[in-house]
C-alpha cells in the first residue's frame, strides 16, 4: 500500500514538474514591430541587443524595450541575458554613469510595452501572453 502511495506521489510530482517547466518556458514571448522583416532570432543576438552590443540586425536598426520589474522580466533575463534583475540594472547603471550609453526604454506594464512596440519600427520586447498583443509579431528564438 505504501509503495503504491509513493508511486502515485512520484507520478504527481513528475506531472507537476512537467506543468511547471511547460508554464515557465511559455512565460516569455519575444515580440517585435510587425515590419521588422524576420520572425526568428538567435538567443545570443537577443542577449547582445539587450546589453547594447548590437544595434542593427539583418540590416534593421533595433530598438529594445524592457519591463521595469516582475516575473516576466526576471524570466527573460534568466533565459536570455543570463543575469538577474539586480545584475542587469547594475550593468546599465555602469554604462549610464560612465558616459557609454543609455539603457533600453522600460515600461511598467506589458500593455504599455506592446503599444510602444506596435508603433515603433525596429522595436523588440517581451511579454508573458500573446493574447492581447495586437500590431506586433512573435519572434521565435533559436540557439
Amino acid at each position: 500500500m505504501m509503495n503504491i502511495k509513493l508511486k502515485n506521489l512520484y507520478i504527481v510530482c513528475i506531472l507537476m514538474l512537467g506543468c511547471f517547466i511547460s508554464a515557465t518556458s511559455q512565460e516569455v514571448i519575444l515580440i517585435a514591430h510587425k515590419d521588422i522583416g524576420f520572425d526568428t532570432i538567435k538567443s545570443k543576438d537577443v542577449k547582445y541587443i539587450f546589453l547594447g552590443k548590437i544595434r542593427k540586425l539583418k540590416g534593421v536598426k533595433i530598438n529594445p524595450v524592457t519591463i521595469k520589474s516582475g516575473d516576466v522580466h526576471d524570466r527573460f533575463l534568466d533565459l536570455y541575458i543570463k543575469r538577474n534583475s539586480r545584475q542587469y540594472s547594475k550593468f546599465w547603471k555602469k554604462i549610464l554613469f560612465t558616459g557609454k550609453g543609455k539603457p533600453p526604454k522600460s515600461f511598467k506594464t506589458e500593455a504599455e510595452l506592446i503599444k510602444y512596440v506596435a508603433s515603433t519600427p525596429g522595436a523588440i520586447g517581451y511579454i508573458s501572453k500573446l493574447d492581447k498583443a495586437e500590431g506586433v509579431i512573435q519572434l521565435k528564438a533559436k540557439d
Partner: protein
Amino acid sequence: MRNKFKYLTITVSLLFVFCSGFGQEYFGIGINGFASQGYLRSTENNYLGKSKDGSFEFNEVGINFQKNLTENLRVGLQLFARDLGSQGNDEVIIDWALLDYKWRSFLNVRVGKIKLPIGLYNEERDIDLLRTSILLPQSVYNEPQREVLSALEGMSLYGSFDMKKFGSIDYNILVGSISTNPEAPFIKDPYLSNVDSAASLATSGLSAVPGFVDVNSLTGNSKVDVNHLIVLQLVYNTPLEGFKIGGSYYETDLEFSGDFALVTNFTNPADPSGTSIISSISKISFFNEITLRSGVVSMEYIWKDLTLSAEAMLQAWWVENIRRDNEVAGFYLSASYQFNDKFAFGAYYSVLYEDLGNKDGSNLVALGRNDFEGFQKDFAITGRYDVNEYLVIKAEVHIINGTADVSYVDNLVNPLKEDWVLFALKTTISF
C-alpha cells in the same frame, strides 16, 4: 566653488525627490544622478584626509544629461564634485563630456572627455552604488592618482568582436591629454616633499658653518603637464558565462616643474649681541621629464550571486633628468556575495609595494624613513544594505599593515604607525 557644489547638491536632491523612477527624460534628454556621503576614521595615521579624528570630507555628487541626436550619434555630459580629504574639495568639474558615434559593433568612436578604462573598475570608481566595497583596492585603484587618471580629453576607438562559440573580445583605444590641478595631492605632495628635502639638505650642509642659524622654505608654484596619454584595453569574455579576463596598458609623458625659495639665516658677525640676523634668499626652480608606463591584468567571474575578481598592476616611472627609475606594483583578490535583494557582503586582500625592487622597504631606512613605508597590506571586509532601488548604506573595516599609500602631508605632526585599522561608512542615493 563651494557655492557651485551646493547648487549641484541641491539640484541632484530636488531631482531625486521629484523623480518617480530611475532616471527622467525631458525633451529626449535623459537625466540621472547620484550623491553620496561617507565617514572615515582610523586608529592611527591620517589616511585620505584627517581620519584620525574622524572625517566627513568624503562625498561625491554627480548628474548627467544624455541625448540621442540621431540613430547613431549620442551626446552626453556629467557634472561631478567630490571631496576626499585634500582631494577634490567639492570643486565642480566636467567628469565626462562626449560625442559618441556608433557605426558597427566592431568599430565606434567617441570624442571629448572620456573616462579611462584602466583595469576593470577605474571608469566606474566615482559611482559607489555599483560595487560592494566603499574603497576600491588601493593597490590598483590608488585614490591620490584618481584626479589625474580619471578621464582624458581626446578620442577613443572601441568595439566588440563576436567569436561565436569562443566568446567575444571588447577593445578600447584612447589617445589624448589630461588637464591637471596643481593642488591635487598627487602633484602637491611630492612637491612639498621635495621642498622639505632641499631645506633639510641645506641645513645639514651648513650646520658646521660658524654663525649658521637655520634654513626656512617658502613654497611657490608647481604643476604637471601631461603631453600625451595612450590607453589600450582588451577584455576577453570567455565562453564560460560570467568569466572574463582582460588587460589594460597606458603610457604617458609628464613634465613636473615648479619653484620654491630657501631662506638661510646667519648671525651678523658685526653685531656682538648676536641678535641681528643676516638672511639670504635662494630661489630654486626644477623641471623633471617623467615617463610613466603602467599595465593591469584582470580577471572577473560572476557566478549567480557570487563575484570573484583579481587584478595585478605594475607602474614603471622613469625620471629623465636624474636617470632614475622606480617600479610600483600591487595586486588584490576580492570576493563579494549577494545574500538577498537587500544584503551583500564582500572582502578583499590588497597589497601595494612602493618599490618592487625593495618590497620590504629596507632601503628606506638609510633615507631616514620607516621600512613599513615601502608596502601596504590591506584586508578589508564590507557589508552593503540596499534600502531600496535608490538608497544604499555600507560599512567597511580595513586591517592594514604598512603605510606606502599614506600621505606625507597629512602626517607631518605624528609619527607613522605600521599597524592600523580604518573604518568607513557611506550612503548613496541615485536616480
